[in-house]
């Protein structure tokens, strides 16, 4: 406990470097701009990360659904007996869990968006579709197609790669954008802290001069100022992250299908963890930025 406190003091996280009255004078309302800005930025960072997680997760989920399924297309002329033989053969193929021909009703539902309700499908030379559930890494496609070709020429195996690839790319892209957004917000926060640190030193130049003249080390001065700035940043970041998490938790996801909701948003525990990570991240970045700026600026003030 004592070691922890000593560490916190060294890092400037604990008020009053050594238990004495604050070295840095109380500053007016403008100092609270640091807290306010940190609050806004932590809020934005949390929303950006959550949006990235949700969108990426959604795309990934769809992709996973598609990956578990494949479709076999047979020529329109395929008769019932052939279809039965094909189904038997598919069911016996390693990598395929089950095979089931779509009935005309299901096929109509698939085509409805293109042809409209009530189209007379029986008049169209529609291919026969077989819905396949995949297990493991799936069947050996060239071998399967060759075997099927012996039964019914013109069978085409479709593993949905054409749809899965763009979904994968979309998920990747959304994640990249969210990451870039988060990095930008964090950089802005670091810049804000650096400005605040410089302003604070400039406003207290005489204090710095006196402390140095009576035997104070720059490390002592740095700790005193870092503490002040980090505490303000932490206060804002915690508030902002909590607000962001609260806002997300209050979203009416109950109205969404339950299958979708867990993908869209982390649960209460997840949100709390995300808020904690964001707040901690801001404290760490604020601490680093404040310390580096103070050291450089103090060197300039020699």
């Amino acid at each position, binding site marked *: 406990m004592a070691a922890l406190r000593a560490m916190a003091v060294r890092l400037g996280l604990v008020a009053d470097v*050594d*238990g004495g*009255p604050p*070295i840095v004078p109380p500053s007016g309302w403008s100092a609270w701009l640091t807290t306010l800005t940190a609050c806004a930025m932590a809020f934005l960072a949390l929303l950006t990360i959550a949006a990235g997680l949700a969108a990426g997760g959604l795309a990934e989920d769809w992709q996973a659904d598609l990956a578990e399924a494949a479709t076999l297309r047979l020529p329109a002329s395929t008769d019932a007996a052939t279809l039965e033989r094909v189904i038997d053969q598919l069911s016996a193929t390693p990598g395929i869990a089950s095979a089931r021909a779509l009935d005309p009703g299901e096929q109509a539902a698939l085509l409805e968006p293109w042809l409209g309700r009530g189209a007379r499908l029986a008049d169209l030379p529609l291919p026969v579709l077989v819905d396949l559930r995949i297990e493991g890494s799936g069947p050996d496609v060239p071998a399967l197609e060759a075997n099927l070709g012996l039964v019914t020429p013109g069978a085409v195996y479709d593993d949905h790669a054409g749809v899965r690839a763009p979904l994968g790319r979309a998920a990747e892209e959304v994640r990249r954008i969210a990451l870039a957004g988060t990095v930008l917000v964090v950089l802005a926060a670091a810049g804000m802290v650096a400005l605040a640190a410089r302003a604070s030193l400039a406003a207290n130049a005489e204090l710095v*001069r*006196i402390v*140095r*003249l009576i*035997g104070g*080390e720059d490390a002592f001065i740095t700790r005193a100022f870092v503490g002040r700035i980090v505490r303000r940043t932490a206060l804002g970041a915690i508030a902002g992250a909590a607000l962001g998490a609260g806002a997300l938790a209050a979203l009416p996801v109950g109205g969404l299908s339950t299958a979708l909701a867990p993908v869209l948003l982390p649960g209460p525990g997840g949100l709390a963890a995300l808020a904690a990570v964001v707040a901690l991240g801001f404290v760490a970045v604020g601490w680093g930025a404040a310390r580096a700026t103070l050291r450089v600026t103090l060197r300039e003030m020699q």
Partner: protein
Amino acid sequence: MISLEKISFGYDGRTTLKELDLEVPAGSFHFLTGPSGAGKTTLLKLLHLEHRPDTGRIGLFGEDIQPADPRQRTRLRRRIGVVFQDFRLIEHMSVSDNIALPLRLQGKPMATHGDDVIELVQWVGLTERADALPRTLSAGEKQRAAIARAVITSPELIIADEPTGNIDAEMGMRILRLLVELNRLGKTVMVATHDLGLIRAAKSLVSARTLRLSEGRLMQAASDL
């Protein structure tokens, strides 16, 4: 204790101090006098490493000053107590917190040194003003607070710049007696002043050497001040 060799210093190209030589033995009491603008404060600032000489060599406590070594600067400053001409108290801190600050800066905990502060505040007669902020103090009270802060860490060398500058004669004597007492405790004391009355009054209390700074040069003052 202090050894200056051919020290020259000037602000913005003008020469304020010209090739000064000075030896100050440990335990001595020196007055530094001269007209306003002669460079008394400037010389003290060189001793306290607030300025670097343009040329020449400064030795303190037997060490050569390395101008580019901030660690040495801090280390040596901790062995010097300075009473600044303009006090330089920290405005948002109370009298006793100002006086205790050098201890804190040297990492000496209040738990073990708190009594020293209370004692010293009493010694300079500020017990009733201990919690006051500097801006509410009279010039004499600020002066005494500044002296207390200068000596709280028991430094070997005490430099006081016009310690009786803006106070009446009676208070001036009181401060002089404080400085003499410190000298009797073994501290080396250097007092810049143009108060010749103070120097005369000191004669009966301490055997002090008086240096006169004039036109950038340092000379031993006539003994019949």
